[in-house]
């Protein structure tokens, strides 16, 4: 219910902000995920229909109306939208897509839903099979687990980067703003975030600590909402950790609300208490037990899913070097807000006759796309291939394409990220080790002291 509601609001927000036009209509070129080059971007009408479909499905999920159709539709449409352009990749969109996929197999719509009302008491259930809640808890916990251990690296813990860069501009914030220029605060935030991420699920699993842990989660995500433009992410996570509470928490909440109603609203209070009562949802004898254990195929599917999700964030170990630099294994691994990368890029295109041209990313990309892709080697490669193809189509033959790529990682001096001698036109896109990406700068990032000027 809450997931669908949040996605409904989020999709409307996306449309109202004009992001369909800015992210998908305006660009002439869209970056593809490896293996998903077939995903195309529809025209403006199709895009609006796509997002309207996402909103409609989200509303269906929120209301529990034709739930199975709605959630499958939501997952398909949402995932398609996210696959349209890599530069729009966000960890929380990926998380939403995973949650939606899991929800396709669950049955949270058998109470408090249009479907439950529509299909009658015999179909309703007061409980969700334990494995369903467990699956959700695994996915939420995995995110925190990997987001935490991703912070176990020198830039974050020993140099407080990139928080040392990101926090000072928020100095004007009420209450805590005055501290945000202080280096010790950057370290404190960095270590707190690390400890928070790696431990919070443990506390949420500990019944006695749960309320307090939830309060810390809310505080943590309120802070991230204030400091960073991360859209719905804090809200999604606060809602997501609710799966760690006892499954009947909504009923108990309603019962408490019902009991707390003033005399004038005693009727409403009674209704809330009635709705909260499991007795109001009779379960046919034997029906509940049949659904508490998943079918073997379902169990196998859940295990396969969980194994894949556990292994996927580890894949960066297969690539030598620093994942923050080469980005191989960066996506889909919960490396959230770990790097400040600013890059400058241009291409040198050498035609077979030796004639050389410089191609600016501006020729193909919107400023937002350029900003996003300049620090991501696989996207630099994709654009190189597009340039190669365009030159070939224009009759310039089999050109060589070299990248002049300078990137600053977490405040370090800019360094070349792509080997300037590597002809990207001949490099195949794939999952193998990319030897055309240079080694990461060895020097530690600077930790900036508080901004202090002397007026002239």
């Amino acid at each position, binding site marked *: 219910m809450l997931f669908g509601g949040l996605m409904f609001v989020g999709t409307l927000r996306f449309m109202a902000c004009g992001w369909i036009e800015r992210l998908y209509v305006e660009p002439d070129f869209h970056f593809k995920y490896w293996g998903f080059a077939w995903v195309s971007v529809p025209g403006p009408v199709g895009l609006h229909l796509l997002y309207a479909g996402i909103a409609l499905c989200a509303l269906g999920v929120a209301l529990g109306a034709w739930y199975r159709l709605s959630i499958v539709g939501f997952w398909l449409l949402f995932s398609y939208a996210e696959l349209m352009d890599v530069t*729009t990749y966000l960890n929380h969109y990926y998380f939403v897509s995973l949650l939606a996929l899991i929800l396709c197999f669950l049955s949270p719509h058998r109470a408090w839903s249009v479907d439950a009302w529509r299909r009658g008491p015999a179909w309703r259930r007061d409980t969700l099979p334990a494995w369903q809640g467990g699956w959700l808890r695994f996915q939420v916990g995995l995110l925190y687990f990997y987001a935490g251990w991703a912070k176990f690296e020198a830039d974050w813990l020993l140099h407080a980067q990139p928080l040392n860069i990101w926090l000072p501009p928020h100095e004007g914030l009420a209450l805590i*703003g005055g501290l945000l220029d202080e280096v010790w605060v950057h370290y404190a935030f960095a270590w707190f975030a690390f*400890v928070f991420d790696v431990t919070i699920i443990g506390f949420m699993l500990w019944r006695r600590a749960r309320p307090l842990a939830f309060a*810390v989660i809310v505080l943590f995500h309120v802070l991230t909402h204030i400091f960073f433009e991360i859209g719905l992410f804090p809200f999604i996570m606060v809602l997501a950790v609710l799966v760690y509470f006892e499954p009947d928490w909504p009923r108990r909440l309603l019962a408490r609300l019902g009991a707390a109603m003033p005399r004038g609203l005693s009727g409403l209070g009674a209704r809330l208490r009635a709705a909260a009562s499991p007795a109001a949802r009779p379960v046919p004898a034997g029906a509940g037990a049949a659904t508490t254990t998943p079918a073997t195929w379902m169990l196998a599917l859940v295990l396969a899913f969980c194994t894949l999700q556990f292994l996927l964030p580890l894949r960066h170990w297969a690539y030598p070097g620093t994942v923050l630099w080469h980005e191989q294994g960066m996506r889909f691994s919960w490396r959230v807000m770990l790097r*400040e990368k600013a890059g400058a890029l241009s291409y040198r*295109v050498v035609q077979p006759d030796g004639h050389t041209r410089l191609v600016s990313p501006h020729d193909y990309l919107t400023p*937002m796309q350029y900003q996003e892709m300049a620090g991501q080697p696989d996207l630099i490669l994709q654009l190189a291939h597009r340039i190669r193809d365009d030159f070939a189509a224009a009759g310039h033959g089999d050109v060589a394409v070299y990248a002049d790529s300078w990137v*600053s990682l977490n405040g370090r001096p800019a360094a070349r990220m792509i080997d300037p001698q590597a002809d990207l036109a001949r490099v195949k896109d794939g999952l193998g080790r990319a030897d055309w990406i240079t080694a990461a700068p060895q020097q530690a990032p600077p930790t*900036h*002291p508080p901004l202090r000027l002397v007026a002239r």
Partner: protein
Amino acid sequence: MIARASLAALLALALAACGGGGGGGGGNPGAGTPLLGDDARRAVLADLGEQLIRPALADFAQAAQALDAALDAHAQNPQDNAAKLQARQAWVTAALAFEPIEVLQVGPAAMADQPGGQDLRDLIYAYPRRVEFQIDCLALSGAAVDADTRIDAMGLGALEHLLYAPVNADAASQCDEGGDVATLRAEYAGRVGAFIAAQAAALRNAWAPAGENFIADWAQAGQGGSVYARPQDALDALSTALFYVEKESKDRKIACPTGIGASGLSCPAADAARVEFALAGISGAALRANVATFQAAFAGVDGGMGLNDLLRGIERGDIADKLDAQLAATLDWLDTEIGADFADDVAAIDSNEACINATSARAGEPVACALHGRIKAAMDTFRSEVVAALSLATPDRAAGDND
């Protein structure tokens, strides 16, 4: 353990509450007074607003007023060559006075979706959009000039065509309603000039303390109802504006005419006709104005502060020194090697290989290509190191969320 974690969080909040918000103020401290955090950012903004932006707007408003008068005189006597030459001279002064503002499209000069933006820029100069046929067609039909007029047929770009080029042949055949062509074109130029002067005055007044006082929003960003919630937001606006030098000056005004930039494969070879102000022959001076304005915003004007002070204030003098040197080298190249008309330098390009080599070496001949290399080096430093160190925005960074 959870209790400890919570206690730590509460302690952090309590400490935060004691922080005091970094001090407001926003006034002008005396020389030698240390400025911290947002006060430092505001001081830089104040200096740039008072010493760079407002003077640039005042200069342009004055030049636009003179242009209006000169065009009026030209319209009174279209056959008088002296009046036309005076109008051209006034146009050159105004066009070059607007080039710094191109690099400073913040506040009222910015697009309407930006803080304080009033969409005034395109009404004054919509480069690179200019359609000669439309300009002459509107001129020959005696059209009025107002905010609804096509931007590719008005502004400084239209005036260059009207003052330096003969009537467009297609327009002459399709739009001529029988009047004297020279008179109609001079009269239309007069209306365009008057409209530009009005926009220039509006832009100047929008910043003036006695006018709409945008300088207060700018210099007191993050305080007192400023349109900028934080000083950083104003710095972000400035940073975004400064990228004009990368996309327009470097890529459009240099890379395309020199033929080294592919620009969608539409600039196949060196072509002097592609320079800005190709008719008036002031493209070199315009480029210099762009770079000089960028340099002024970075280093400050007349002893005032600029973005490089913010870098030095966080002990990143290494980056400040690097970009200072790159900008100085670029301006030196513009002063010593590039003529007032960049088209001449483009015309001197006779070898693609030499051009690429000069770009890479940032020196040698053709000098136009070396200029490209110098600006590129400076803008690469800005886009990567400066932006990263100061957490500045690049264009369109606000589209969408992060994580």
